[in-house]
């Protein structure tokens, strides 16, 4: 028990004094996961709109599949992206492996199902009246999708935040694609894994507290905007 209290005390000290290592790792983590959430949202929100408003064969099955992939294991995404961007893979020449950009790509893929799925749910909750009104005013299909997404912006925003939370807290892609390189691809989760194994428990606890605090903030924002 003493070890835990000591660790906690030193961890708070590390955070309170803005320890350069803690600040650096935290800001890198935020940058990478925000970027991946942003990248994913560019593709996933319109994609969710298209799936929701188009009628096509296999739509139910597709939505089911997307929902199944909410719990897509991070290591399988890591493996997939590794095979793609490794030196001997099809995208090897881009040199993305063991860079933050490779991590952003992998995390974007990881959070895509959640964002598409929750966007679909969000849009399905918008009153059909809005769609009809837009159509009667002469809007084309793309304009209708944009109108409805705007109407559901709070719930769509929530899907982006949840995606960001998942990206921030995952360790599989970060480790396999980033490689945990100090000062370059080392993020909160991979640091905690490494520092714990090296016995630097204070630093691990400090980073863990930060990780949980960020999740807490995300959750507070979610509650707030759902209001």
């Amino acid at each position: 028990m003493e070890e835990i209290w000591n660790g906690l005390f030193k961890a708070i000290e590390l955070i309170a004094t803005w320890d350069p290592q803690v600040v650096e790792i935290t800001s890198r983590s935020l940058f990478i996961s925000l970027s991946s959430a942003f990248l994913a949202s560019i593709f996933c929100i319109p994609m969710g709109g298209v799936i929701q408003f188009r009628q096509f064969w296999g739509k139910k099955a597709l939505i089911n599949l997307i929902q199944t992939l909410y719990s897509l294991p991070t290591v399988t995404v890591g493996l997939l992206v590794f095979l793609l961007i490794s030196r001997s893979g099809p995208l090897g020449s881009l040199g993305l492996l063991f860079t933050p950009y490779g991590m952003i790509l992998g995390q974007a893929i990881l959070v895509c199902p959640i964002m598409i799925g929750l966007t679909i749910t969000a849009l399905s909750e918008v009153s059909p009246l809005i769609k009809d009104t837009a159509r009667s005013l002469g809007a084309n299909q793309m304009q209708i999708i944009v109108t409805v997404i705007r109407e559901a912006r709070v719930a769509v925003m929530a899907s982006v935040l949840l995606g960001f939370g998942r990206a921030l807290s995952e360790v599989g892609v970060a480790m396999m694609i980033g490689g945990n390189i100090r000062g370059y691809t080392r993020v909160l989760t991979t640091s905690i894994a490494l520092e714990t194994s090296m016995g630097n428990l204070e630093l691990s606890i400090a980073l863990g507290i930060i990780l949980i605090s960020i999740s807490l903030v995300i959750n507070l924002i979610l509650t707030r905007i759902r209001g």
Partner: protein
Amino acid sequence: MKLATTTSLQDTGLLDLIKEKFDQSHNVSLDVVSGGTGIAIQYGERGDVDVLLVHDKARESKFIEDGHGLERRCIAFNYFYLVGPENDPAGIQGMNASAALAVIMAKGMEDPDSVKFVSRGDDSGTHAREKLLWKNAGYNYSDILNSESNSTKSWYIDAGQGMGATLNMASELQAYTLTDMSTFMAYQGNLNLTSLIEGGDELLNVYVGMVVNPQKHPGVNCLLASEFIDYLVSDQGQKLIASFGTDKFGKPLFFPAKGNCDVISCSEEECAVPTAASCAAAA
């Protein structure tokens, strides 16, 4: 009984074989926790395991001195290799290891695109040896760490991962790295790396077994742990170690400690002899 081991013994498959034979003859089930030497020693210091197989003399001695372990027993050895891209962009082939590191550093700072070094950076035995080599080369390890810039353009890459992952990274980035001989041989088929410097006292790699002290950590299975060490240093165990890998790689991955005590600078009392300290006395 729980055994914490350095990754090389596990990743090469040697420990699976030893476990199979030992489990059979002693009718037990050995639980193997595999990590770097730093991690293994930490498990030992916390009393989370009963016996250790590690390879970093300085930390082994400290472990014994601090009373966490009963005795140090040399069981096997091989060498570290300095490996790198086939075209050897820094031109280190034929140098001694510490001189080679100095050259890699100088050329890496000049041209980080073509000369890089990947470090384990995880407090493992191999990482400890890398630090020692930097010291021999006349550098402070903290200076090495500070010389990296926070960009892709850095010549020194601190991976913070196990040997296999580090080798894969070095291969992908066409960088140099320090590796133990056995892991390199086991992974070589999948790597675009070649061994550039091998052998020599600087690169000697001695594997050691230690029983966790039951006085310091009540509840550890001292008797069985001693039997395990005794099995490793027995003729049977030493033969197993000496022949392991010859069928697959054409040469052994590890050399037995027995008969090589002078070469590996282990004293007679700690070189491939059965454990002497009694668990009862310690407890």
